[in-house]
């Protein structure tokens, strides 16, 4: 995991480039699964807020799409803003992958994948203009 921070007003903006991730989710698709809504979310605590969750990336996979995903050099799809300055020096930012199963008809479960990655944020801001 490689993270860079950019100072912007008094919010911290982070762009993380993922390494590469391969996953095969053929087993989740059955006759009643119309689509999967996958999302990578970051969860952390700050002084201002006991719990923060931010979706960094999401993808829709329809039944019939290639179930093997190979993601390399992905940029964060959504800006990672904190409500305050809580990302600076935050050692405990956890990234987890989850998905929402959309059936042809029936219950809409939200499943969180097992395992997670921790991303510690540095103590200082970095001023770069790398967009």
């Amino acid at each position, binding site marked *: 995991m490689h993270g860079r921070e950019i100072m912007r007003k008094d919010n911290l903006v982070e762009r993380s480039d993922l390494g590469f991730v391969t996953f095969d989710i053929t087993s989740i698709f059955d006759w009643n699964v119309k689509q999967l809504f996958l999302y990578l979310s970051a969860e952390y605590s700050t002084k201002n807020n006991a719990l923060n*969750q931010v979706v960094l990336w999401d993808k829709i996979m329809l039944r019939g799409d290639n179930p093997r995903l190979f993601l390399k050099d992905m940029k964060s799809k959504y800006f990672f803003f904190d409500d305050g300055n809580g990302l600076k020096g935050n050692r405990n930012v956890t990234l987890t992958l989850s998905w929402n199963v959309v059936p042809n008809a029936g219950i*809409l479960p939200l499943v969180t994948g097992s395992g997670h990655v921790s991303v510690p944020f540095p103590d200082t801001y970095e001023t770069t203009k790398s967009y």
Partner: protein
Amino acid sequence: MLVIVYYDDVLNFGMIVSSALMIWKGLMVVTGSESPIVVVLSGSMEPAFHRGDLLFLTNRIEDPIRVGEIVVFRIEGREIPIVHRVLKIHEKQNGDIKFLTKGDNNAVDDRGLYKRGQHWLEKKDVVGRARGFVPYIGIVTILMNDYPKFKVRALSFSACFSHPS
């Protein structure tokens, strides 16, 4: 004799209507939502939901709002409920939460939809969380709204069915 037969029909129809109302109110209590069943009105959540799909909601206080969930919310001052997904949440120690939503099929988040000066949604704006869905069935409601004549014909049709013979 004819008068008695007439009362019978009316009472029967009344029974059907009050049973339907009881079931609806019962659902409201069980799910905790003021509107436990909603019809999807726009294409902003495609390809998951299309116009006319029916959503079943719950709104229990014990269920916290988390990212990825599909929420149905109302913007203050507007009647039409919107069905979108939670993108960000910031929750305080005491449970106060503010969150941002986005439609799967939209390129940007919903800030542009909120009231002027409003940047976040709160628990009070939420009608419920989508827990289950059935496709197509809600088309009837949309048809009844768009074509009022259809509504009158459908209601008189169902009144015929209440005749006991």
